[in-house]
Structure formats: C-alpha cells, structure tokens
C-alpha cells in the first residue's frame, strides 16, 4: 500500500506536526481514581489518511475514542476537527460535525431490521422532524435515496442477505460489519473504528480493508484501533502507539513496527506471524 506521500517526510516522533492535520488533539487527559487512562500531550491526524492506533490492552485507546467523541468527559484538554473546537460538545454534535465512531462492544439495534439500522445513520433526514414526518412528500424521495445507499453498503459488507432480518439475530462478526456500515451512512469526515476487525473472518477482513482504503481514497480520514499487525501493516498510512495513556511512538507503519519501545510494550517477543508454538 502506498503511504501518503505527504507523510513520508514527517519525522516519526510522538506529537509531531502534520502537513495538513484534520484532527488536532492537545493535552487530553482522563483518570479513573488513581489510574491515568489517557494522557495525550499533542496528536495530529493527517487528512485523508488511514491512521492506526495500537497499544497494549488497557492502554487507553477506547477511552481516548470515548473522549474525542464526547461519550466520556475529559478531565482536561482541547481538540479540533478542521479547526472547529469539539471539546465539551455532546456526542451527537460531534457526530454531526463529521466525526463518527463505532464501538468495540457492538451496539446492534436488535429489534430493528438490518436495513433500518443502516438507514438510521443517514444525517440531515428531513423526516426526522416531528412535523415534517407527517408530510411524506417532504421526505419520500430522500428516503429512497438513503435506502439505495444503504443497500449498496449492505452489498459491500456482505449483509444483503440479512437485509430484512432483525439486527438482534446477527452473529458477533456480522455485528461488527453492521456497526461499521452504519457509521459510514453518516458520511463522516473522520471515522473512528474501535477494533472493527476483531472477530471478523479473515476472508472478509480483506474485503473490509479494501473498503476502508476506498474510503480513504474518497477522502474520508480513518482512524482505527486494531490489534492485528497484519492489518495494521497492510493498510495504515500512519501508526500511533499508545501505552499507559500516552503516545509512545508514531510514524510510518514499518518504523513503528520496529520501534523497540513498541515491541517492548506491545508486540512482545513474537512479533508478526511467527506463531511457532
């Protein structure tokens, strides 16, 4: 995968400035009791790239996502999306500002059909207003459009055969797919994926990755947490490694993968696929 040329020249040091950052995070911290779960001094995410976030279990990756998307309140810190300050904003505002996330523990809307799950994601739906909901002619055509878009996504995520089933009947992996497809319905500028590939069948992972790179090529900035180093190495333009809440290393995939700090904290002795047990 070709790394974004703009990043090639960026120095691989934690907190380094990017040529065209879309997301800029400053001094974000969050503690639980005595545990400092997140403590990020400075982090920039380059527009239109795939940035992977890796780090040992409990490093604070999910918590960082929670903070950035407003689902948890930071003890301190600021962050901006395209120059718009997003700290202290409610989650739905952040989503509307163009930053959408998925959940590590999936949140399928069980008693809604798969297609409805997806259609929900579309933003600026006229028919969501209470008055205009009563006037079908105002939202009818938009609804058709949304449905078509949803169907295309279902097709891509191999969920088309489950289109009219209750989302509650999906298997664990299928829920991951649903979760990601639904977030894409929002048509976000930045999408935060929390371990979207965990538990997904490897054959499918490949096609999903294709989808993720397509997204990037369409101009969406993708940030995702992933533990599968094959995936990380395969598609990331940039990798950030978190440990104990702080960024310990960032850089091009190869550079981070061979950073001794990362190997020590995260990869352990069996780096890569050498499962020779």
């Amino acid at each position, binding site marked *: 995968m070709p790394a974004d040329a703009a990043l090639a020249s960026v120095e691989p040091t934690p907190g380094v400035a990017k040529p065209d950052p879309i997301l800029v995070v400053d001094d974000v911290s969050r503690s639980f009791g005595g545990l400092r779960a997140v403590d990020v001094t400075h982090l920039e995410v380059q527009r239109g790239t795939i940035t992977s976030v890796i780090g040992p279990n409990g490093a604070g990756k*999910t*918590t960082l*996502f*929670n903070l950035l998307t407003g*689902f*948890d309140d930071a003890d301190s810190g600021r962050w901006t999306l395209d120059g718009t300050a997003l700290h202290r904003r409610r989650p739905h505002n952040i989503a509307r500002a163009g930053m959408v996330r998925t*959940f*590590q523990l999936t949140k399928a809307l069980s008693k809604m059909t798969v297609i409805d799950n997806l259609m929900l994601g579309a933003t600026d739906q006229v028919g969501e207003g209470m008055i205009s909901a009563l006037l079908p002619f105002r939202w009818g055509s938009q609804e058709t459009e949304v449905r078509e878009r949803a169907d295309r996504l279902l097709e891509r995520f191999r969920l088309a055969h489950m289109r009219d089933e209750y989302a509650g009947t999906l298997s664990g992996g299928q829920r991951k797919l649903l979760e990601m497809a639904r977030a894409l319905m929002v048509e976000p500028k930045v999408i935060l994926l*929390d371990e979207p590939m965990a538990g997904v069948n490897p054959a499918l992972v490949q096609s999903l990755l294709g989808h993720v790179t397509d997204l990037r090529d369409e101009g969406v900035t993708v940030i995702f947490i992933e533990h599968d180093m094959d995936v990380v190495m395969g598609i990331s333009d940039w990798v950030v490694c978190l440990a104990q809440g702080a960024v310990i290393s960032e850089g091009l995939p190869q550079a981070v993968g061979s950073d001794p700090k990362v190997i020590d904290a995260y990869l352990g002795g069996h780096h890569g696929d050498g499962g020779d047990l």
Partner: protein
Amino acid sequence: MPFVHRPTRRLILVLLAFAALVVCAPSASAQDDGGEEPAAEESAESIGGRLQDVDREPVEGVTLTVTAEDGSEIGTATSDDAGEWRVPLPGPGVYTVTIDPETLPEGVELRDAERTSLSPEVRAGQDRTVLFALGDGTDARAENRPSRTSRLLNLAAEGVKFGVMIALAALGLSMVFGVTNLVNFAHGELLAFGALVAWWLEDSLGIPLLLAALVAVALAGMMGVGFETAVFGPVRRRKSGDIAAMVISIGLALVVRYVYLILFGGEPRSYSDYRLQQTVDLGPLSLTPKSWATIVVGLLVLTAFGWALRSTRIGTAMRAVSVNKDLAESSGIDVRRVVLATWLVGAALAGLSGVMFGLAESVRWDMGNDVLLLIFAAVVLGGLGTAYGAMVGGLVVGLVTQLSTYWFAPDLKLMFALVVLIVILVARPQGILGVKERFG
C-alpha cells in the same frame, strides 16, 4: 350551614355534670338545675357558657354582656357558683358576647387577652354555648412542651423505624430484581402475607406473636419460592421477557391481594401481643419497646444480609446470576437454586417487614400495596442491585417522610420522600450507592 341546634332533652346538664365528673372526678359535686336561667324555658334561644380556670374549677362572679348586631344590649349575666351563665335572646341571629376582664378574680386571666368578645350565630331554638378560655397568666401549653431538638430527634427515630421496615422489604425486592430482573409488583403482597399470617396465627390459634412471626416469615419465604416455581420460573424459561414478567406480577398481585380481602376481610386489625405499650425513654428518645425492637432487629438483619450478599459465596453467586445467567451457568452455578434461594430470602425479608408494619401500624389486606411505592423508591434511591443501597435508600425514605412533617403539612410527607428521590437521582443518576458503569 344554616341549622338549628335543639337539644331535645335537658340532657345537656347531665352531660355537663358528667363531663365535669370525667375530667376532674374528685371535685365532682351534684349540680342542680339552678345553673340554667329560668328564661331559657320560655324563650327558644339563649346564649350561655361555663367559665372554668386552668384546673377546670368554676369561676364565679364574672360579668358578661350580650349585644345584638346593631350594638343594642340584650342583657348581661354573671357566672354562678358553677361558673355558668346564660342570657335569653329575643330570637335567632348573630350576637356578640363580651366578657368583662375586670370582673375576673385574682389570678385568673383570659388566655387570649385580646379575645374579650365572641360573635356566634344563634339559630332558631338553639341554646348556644360559647367558651371564654381562662388561664393563670402563664402559657400552660408551653410548660411541658418538648424542645425542638427532642421533637426532631424523636421524629428521626420514628423515621429510622419506618426506614428500617421499608429497607427490609426493599432489600428483598432488590435481591429478587437483581437476580431475576423482575420488577415484582407482587412484592407488597409478600409483605402483607407475613403480616396477615402472623395475625391469623396469633388471633385464631393463640400462638404468641413472636412465634407466629417466625412462622409467618418462614411461610412468606415459602410463598416467594411458590411464586418462582409456579409462575415466574416457567415464564422465564419461556423467554417471555422482563416486561411480560412484570405485567404478570401485576396480575399476580391482583389475584393474591383479593384472596386476602376475601379471607381476611377489609378491616384493619392489630396484633394483641405488644399492643399499646408505654414508651421507654433512652436519653431524649422516647419510643415504645416494640419500636426499639423493630429498629434493632431490623438493623441487625439488614447488616447481616448486606454483609452476606457482599461476602459469602452464595451472595456473590446471586450477584453473578443477576447480570448474566448463561455465564453463571457456565461457571457451574446452579442458577435455579440460586434463584430459589433469592426468592426465599427476599420474600422472607418482605414477610418480616410485614410483621413489623403490622406491629407498628395495622394489619390490612392491602397494606403491601400501600407501601410498595416507597419500597421501590428506596430500592432505586440506594442504587439497584446494591444490598446496602436498599438499606440506605430505605432509611432516607423513612427519615424524609417523618422529618418533613416538622416543617411541612403532614399530608405532603409522602410527596417529600418522592421529591427527595428525584433530587438525589438527578444529582446521582446511579443512586446513592450505585456504581456508574464504564462506557464503551
């Protein structure tokens, strides 16, 4: 409002004599009819009264003047040796009676110095009585009035008692909810069951209350087990859902409650043991022995169960079952047995609470339904699924209900408990002892 008050017999005098006899028996002396103005015979209406000092001794020789509405004087009277006076009236209407404070004997004063005249309406044929309250210049009412602090303390003690009873039931409810996810609207009926059975055992079999209570608590526990085996267990196995189970509990509550009504009737009853006890003072607190016992036993039971739920293996298993039955099964926990044990204990606690309510209040067929909301409030206040939470919640509910009456009208006391519930939940959405779950 217009009405006429016509004593059909001269019984009033007998009554007055009787009243005097009742209130100050030693000073009772045969009264004769002399007290009544002869004019009363002829004229249909009269106005009169009897003057008494603080010791309810007659006050003699006080002058009273009766004037009509237009200010014209109708007549005057002086109280006789029985303290009585009466003035015949020309007809019905509003008259003003004025007492002459000057004529009051030494050491006797009007309790309310301002209130020297009264203007009652006298209707056709009525012998109206009015009352001038006399005192000795001291505020008699203030004398042995309890101090603010002692009242507050006593209210607090009553609050603790009430709270303990609520908490016992709440703990049971919370346990059953925790383990089965059932919002059990029939929990109040378990409470009533304890009270009613204890009453029945005591009343018709003559079993002493303490023993009856033990049996009743045990039977209430069995009833809980019955609920589970006959109703909620099968429902859960059919995977009917929590909401359906809740509605079923509403139905069950109806059935059981009306069985009580048929079997026990609608009137409230009380236990005959420990009825009408004298209060026992402990420092500034004065409570009846049964109240003390309720508080002590209740707190002991609560702490014991709170501890057991936190620290014993079965307690942990109950909490485990409460969040994830499948995983509990997978851990080797016999979920059915845990559920049964929970019902047994939860219902027994409700039964105990019921007996205590019966002791402190009364035994009624619908008593459980009456306190159910407070029990729910306590459970939620403390934080669902926390054993000590139910206890704290119960105490808060109890204290607030009782203490609020110190400042506010008593008919609003339940409201205050509920207002506090909302206020606390707004500040702490997970309840007082509840834990906020992590997100994501």
